[in-house]
């Protein structure tokens, strides 16, 4: 049985070593923080020359251009705040619409308007929606830009809205496929990254706000603006899920859930991403 006197130096070392380790590790964390800071500065610079503005300009023109068998513009389209009222509309979507009796996001609502106001078929309205410089890309970017500065505030009043939120919530945690992935696999813990790409914790309001206020976004790697549905579809592709249908319930439900997580976030879209 050794005496305390002889144990004393070893005890002190045992107490101090973790502290030293922490100091060294904190230095690593400091390096990470500096790197993040530099990347954020670079991102701010990119915002100045965001090619999404070209899509915005295109969308503005499409909004006021006559089209379809009814030779009508989209100016009477109701995105939830009344016909033609665009300011802040994106920040309030998805929501329930009485005329279609459905919860709709901006993309599905635009299709409703193209069909009802312009007389296009659903097929015509959605053809090539995901291609660069598509009409949908332009219109969604334009409408999102009209919510700059607006606070995300999606209604959870109608039972259908609450039901879609619950559905989105369930889907977010649903694991399936050969890699057992759910959205939660990558997006339910703070300060995580895949390789060097940060993946935000969408269950934390401040992280959800950072994400949802930046979509739709110009993706430099694709050279085009991606809508939120396009982005979610690509998540699912990487999760090894099948591709959901465009405008399908799963995509709208997830948006309902995510927008609710991001409530209060100030819209800055269209954003710019790698």
């Amino acid at each position: 049985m050794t005496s305390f006197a002889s144990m004393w130096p070893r005890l002190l070392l045992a107490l101090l070593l973790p502290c030293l380790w922490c100091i060294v590790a904190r230095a690593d964390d400091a390096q990470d923080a500096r790197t993040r800071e530099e990347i954020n500065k670079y991102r701010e610079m990119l915002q100045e020359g965001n090619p999404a503005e070209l899509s915005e300009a295109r969308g503005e023109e499409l909004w006021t251009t006559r089209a379809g068998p009814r030779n009508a513009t989209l100016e009477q389209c109701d995105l939830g705040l009344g016909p033609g009222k665009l300011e802040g509309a994106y920040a309030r979507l998805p929501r329930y619409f009485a005329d279609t009796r459905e919860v709709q996001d901006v993309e599905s609502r635009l299709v409703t308007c193209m069909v009802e106001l312009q007389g296009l078929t659903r097929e015509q309205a959605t053809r090539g929606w995901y291609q660069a410089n598509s009409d949908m890309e332009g219109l969604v970017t334009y409408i999102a830009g009209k919510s700059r500065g607006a606070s995300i505030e999606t209604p959870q009043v109608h039972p259908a809205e609450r039901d879609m939120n619950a559905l989105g919530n369930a889907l977010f945690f649903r694991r399936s496929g050969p890699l057992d992935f759910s959205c939660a696999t990558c997006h339910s813990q703070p300060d995580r990254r895949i390789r060097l790409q940060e993946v935000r914790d969408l269950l934390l309001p401040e992280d959800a706000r950072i994400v949802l206020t930046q979509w739709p976004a110009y993706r430099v790697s694709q050279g085009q603006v991606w809508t939120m549905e396009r982005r979610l579809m690509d998540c699912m592709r990487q999760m090894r899920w099948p591709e959901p249908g465009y405008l399908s319930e799963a995509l709208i439900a997830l948006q309902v859930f995510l927008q609710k997580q991001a409530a209060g976030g100030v819209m800055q879209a269209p954003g710019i991403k790698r």
Partner: protein
Amino acid sequence: MANAIKVRSKIEGDVALIRLLISHPMETGLRKDTEGQLVPAHFIELLTITYQDRTVLSAQWGPAVSRNPYLAFRFKGAQKGEKLRITWVDNKGESQTDEAVLE
């Protein structure tokens, strides 16, 4: 309006800060499409910007400039209400000219 040039101008004193966003595919000629075929090179080779018959910027671009290029530059002697003329010519011989009124 297929190929847009978006111009923003800000005049401070007699110096104008011009910011341009040009819609152009800027293909390097080295990229492959989803079928594995090379996408042919298609990029702006020459960009000329004139103000009152004076060339204020002349740039020789190439495949290193990315898609939908953004350019910012300053020049002296600018006056509000005057016009800026922007012309690009690409490797296919296609060209576009646009005019913007300085604010």
